[in-house]
């Protein structure tokens, strides 16, 4: 039950990210989460958008380089230790998290975290039987 994430290559140049977000806004694409990873010379923007197909078409047209990556969206209680509990479960299950960031959406006292985990088997085994809840595209209103 992964969700779609778009990663865009950023060269180290001011304004490039502004350009990308403006482009999405102009085309009525709603940015639901964004995370930037960078080195001194380049970086990448990881984004969750409400319409990933439309967004990738727009960005490709614009000449950006991107990739679609499956990531997990996990519901986290919006209270102290909410995230810590999740990470503890993953650590105990020996699940490597490559990166994570939060979704803008909050609902009914819950926040959502986006996690990149390549070892799917370890992940599903680790959360089996816990009250950790995965959320899908539909539930988040994504397509």
């Amino acid at each position: 039950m992964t969700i779609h994430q778009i990663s865009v290559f950023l060269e180290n140049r001011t304004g490039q990210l502004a350009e990308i977000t403006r482009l999405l806004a102009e085309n009525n694409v709603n940015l639901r989460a964004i995370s930037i990873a960078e080195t001194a010379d380049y970086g990448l923007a990881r984004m969750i958008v409400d319409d990933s197909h439309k967004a990738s078409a727009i960005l490709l047209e614009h000449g950006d380089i991107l990739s679609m990556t499956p990531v997990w969206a996990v519901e986290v209680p919006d209270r102290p230790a909410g995230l810590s509990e999740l990470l503890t479960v993953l650590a105990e299950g020996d699940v490597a998290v490559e990166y994570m960031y939060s979704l803008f959406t909050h609902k009914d006292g819950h926040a959502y975290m986006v996690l990149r985990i390549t070892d799917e088997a370890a992940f599903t085994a680790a959360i089996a039987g816990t009250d950790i809840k995965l959320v899908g595209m539909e539930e988040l209103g994504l397509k």
Partner: protein
Amino acid sequence: MPNYYQPEIETMPYEDIRALQNERLLKQVRHVWDNVPYYRKKMEEKGVTPDDIQSIDDLYKLPFLSKDDLREAYPYGLLGMPLSECVRIHSTSGTTGKRVVAFYTQHDVDLWEDCCARAIVAAGGTKEDVCHVAYGYGLFTGGAGLHGGSHKVGCLTLPMSSGNTDRQLQFMTDLGSTILCCTPSYAAYLAESIYERGLRDQIKLKAGIFGAEAWSEDMRRDIEDKLGIKAYDIYGLTETSGPGVAFECSEQTGMHINEDHFIAEIINPETGEVLPEGSKGELVFTAITKEAFPLLRYRTRDICVLTRKKCSCGRTHVKMSKPMGRSDDMLIIRGVNVFPSQIETVLLQKGYPANYQIVVDRVNNSDTLEVMVEMTPEMFSDSLGQIARMEKELVAALKAMLGIMAKVKLVAPKTIARSEGKAVRVIDKRKI
């Protein structure tokens, strides 16, 4: 089974080649001194007379000739024979300034055609072959040179000239061309057309002789695969007669220079100093048999390496590597010679686009080299670690090729201006 056109010359022991070169050089210097006032003046300015040249060891004393000299001496300034003895001219398609015009006596044409015949035979050509000459005919030397060589070998010669692909393919299939002579880019184009039209089964090509342009090993493999042939390189300049100055043998590891007609030197393009065998530098030719256009120490501006390593084909003449670049393009970074073409080779090998830019600068009295490379969808990954690994690999490959560290800067696609005519590949901030 090695094939030679003139075995006694092509496999002559090195000492004999050298003796022949000595004898011919002395005669040629005298011929030039007596008949080419332009060069005589250059010798006088350097304080050199024919008596100072007793053997090849004295060659370094002679002044160089450059393309600028040829332009300055245009059209007759370097002519070594009365025009009445000349039977032909060829000319380079210079992009700037005056054209260069080269003259030939019948003897010159004969020797040139011998050189081309050696190349054809080395590529497996015999009188049973159908030699398809798709180099341009006319002022350009390609068509005439290979045409003449093909005649000498006794091949059935198809004087196709370049262009008109339909006709090329029709003759190729109907008349069973076995050897294709043209530029590598045209060969690649024809190979593509043959492949697309599904004509592979109807062609009988076995070899190709491709020159007059820079081409890579990848391009060679591509053409060889598509056409099912062996593709041989050939080298030459209008200034030194045309194609056939050097040609590839079955070993395909460099081109044998026809040393009975040319003395090759490698020099440091900055200082003019002669470099030892195996050094990379600018190729300089002295024509020792040419009558009408007897250029001594002509700077080709091509950068390459010479080797006398024993060749499996049995030929004894020195081999030159494929030119690695032009001396005009050479950058000296931290004392090391760097050619943009070397960087291009590494990028292509590693799967990056050839659209790059080199930025050279000086920081704290030390030169810096930065190579800007465009990211491609194939190289891109969601993982920074993965991108960093690729970047590291590229840095290592550049270091191995150039001998110095280069910084790689990955940039967004279409950041580096595409070439409209000539792309700006090098930005040297040190000069400013």
